[in-house]
């Protein structure tokens, strides 16, 4: 069990307190390809941020690879994010004044990997994602799909065991979305990386092997989707 959540609660204390996660119980095995679906505001991003140790939870337990994630020091948390988890975001979150290859290198910079080695590795990953020729370009010179592939390369470069993606196709057209999802599926198949994708598009969810529904802050139905026939439109297409 690489991820295990036991009765996790999270409340945002804004103008008025908002109890977003109301006792989440969820287990994910190593090597799974899971999507989390739910209505807007149901707490999907909140859950994913907790899984990625980007944010804290209030009560309950979160076990990551056998370790209880609670009261970590900033340094420990940074280390987990750096080595264990790769992030892919809807808005790509690339750094605008860095070229594609520099963006991909950045996690290794914080690991203290020497410049040359970092560069070689980053170029390798860009090459694998078919972006070799775009290495020297800045994010604003690239299409959404290209940017998301750069972001995926950045997430992969530290060889993480888990990839967390929050609506990775949210800003992409249907064809590019399919490509990105195919890429994630391939990574899951070939490299056995555990991948969790948050989405509210059924077509995207249908690409994954398991669909977790979240509703009103609790886990609802969990669908097995090995045959990729959950979507009415069937496998292999994403309707926008």
């Amino acid at each position, binding site marked *: 069990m690489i991820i295990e959540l036991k009765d996790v609660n999270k409340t945002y204390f804004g103008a008025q307190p908002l109890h977003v996660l109301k006792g989440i119980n969820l287990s994910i095995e190593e090597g799974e390809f899971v999507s989390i679906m739910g209505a807007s505001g149901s707490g999907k991003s909140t859950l994913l941020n907790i899984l990625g140790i*980007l944010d804290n939870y209030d009560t309950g337990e979160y076990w990551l690879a056998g370790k209880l994630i609670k009261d970590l020091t900033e*340094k420990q948390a940074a280390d987990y994010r750096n080595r264990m988890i790769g992030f892919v*975001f*809807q808005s790509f*979150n690339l750094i605008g*004044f860095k070229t594609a290859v520099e963006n991909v290198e*950045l996690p290794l*910079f914080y690991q203290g990997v020497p410049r040359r080695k970092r560069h070689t590795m980053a170029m390798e990953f860009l090459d694998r994602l078919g972006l070799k020729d775009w290495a020297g370009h800045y994010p604003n010179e690239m299409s959404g799909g290209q940017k998301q592939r750069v972001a995926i390369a950045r997430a992969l470069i530290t060889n993480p065991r888990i990839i967390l993606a929050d609506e990775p196709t949210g800003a992409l057209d249907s064809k590019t979305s399919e490509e990105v999802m195919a890429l994630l599926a391939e990574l899951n198949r070939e490299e056995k990386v555990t991948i969790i994708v948050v989405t509210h598009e059924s077509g995207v969810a249908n690409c994954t092997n398991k669909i977790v529904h979240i509703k009103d802050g609790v886990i609802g139905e969990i669908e097995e989707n090995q045959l990729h026939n959950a979507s009415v439109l069937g496998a292999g297409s994403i309707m926008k």
Partner: protein
Amino acid sequence: MRIDWDSYKEITESLARNKSRTLLTGFGIFWGLFMLLFLVGGSRGLEKILANNFSGFATNSTIIFANRTTKPYRGHGERRRWDLDLKDIDRLSMMIPEMEVVTPLLSAWNQTAEYDEHSQDCYIKGIYPEYASIEEPMLKYGRYLNESDCIQERKVCVIGRRIYNTLFPDGGNPCGTFIRIGPVFYQIVGVDISSGNISINGNMSRTALVPMPVVQKLYRGGSRVDLIAMTGKKGVKMSSLDDRIRQIVAREHKFDPTDKPALGLVNTEQLFGIVDNLFLGLNILVLLIGLGTILAGAIGVSNIMMVTVKERTTEIGIRRAIGATPRQILGQIIMESVTLTLAAGSLGIVFSVLLLEGLEKITSNSEFGAAPFQIGFWTAIAAAAGLAVMGVLAGLAPAIRAMRIKPVDAMRDE
């Protein structure tokens, strides 16, 4: 935190991102440092120029001269004339053992020195050889007046620079030559080119120094003298002798010792003290202005960095999300601040050094004499070290703010 090429690149990249803002911010620091060092160097050079004016003049000396009395005393009415005379010299040196030199000066004004077809207005100052310890000569040719000149009442003179330049436009050693001053021919024995602007009874450059007895006989008659100049032995403060000098002179010339205006008394030590205080004040002012400007620059840097950090919330959040520790973020912001201050400040140092160098060049061949405007090597090093500290301090508040940015903050407000 590691400081290597990578960190350096991260830093310059962020600074280069908003070039005009970085430039404007850096300018504050640049200007502050430039001002401070330039003013420090400038005031030092000015001080030296002024010191050049005093050069060669005994700093621990007293000069006295007679004025009319202002109080009636023992049957004498007020506004009585009296004169210092040669006997006062022996009296003062005998009764005040702390005296090193007590020597008179007797002038003849409105003279004209002539040689060939050249002529130059001048003063004649009658002196004894000891006078050299009051106004130190700087001989270009020949020698100073000596004992035998005085004993034998030789008609010899030491001429000042202006007289020399006018009478001998072609230069060369004039010693042995006779020049005419008034009806008298004097043989030149020396040329004194000292340039100090403080001198008694006329500037040295227009002066012909002549043995005291000669002046007495030819121009003034009697044994009265214009001034008596005195210096103390080592460790004696001349100002502490003022009262005794007054007592001795007053008793002899029969005026009230408390009648201050009757005896003119100038203490160079006090004179120099005033100048010293003036420059102390100037230096404090310079420091205040310079440091104030730098401080304003540093606050500017801090302010701009604060704005920058706010703008970079998303970027910093992304860095945190992919594994940067708060410490690394803190280090980066502080290094940005230090880099900006150091780069701009160093430019300020370089500029002020260049300008001071120029000033030094200009003054080196002016009539004031050379003055060291240039700041010292260690001053520059200290300034650079101070800059680095200031950079850290200026970066501290923004860096702490940046450190508090959480990874989730990057995901918000898209």
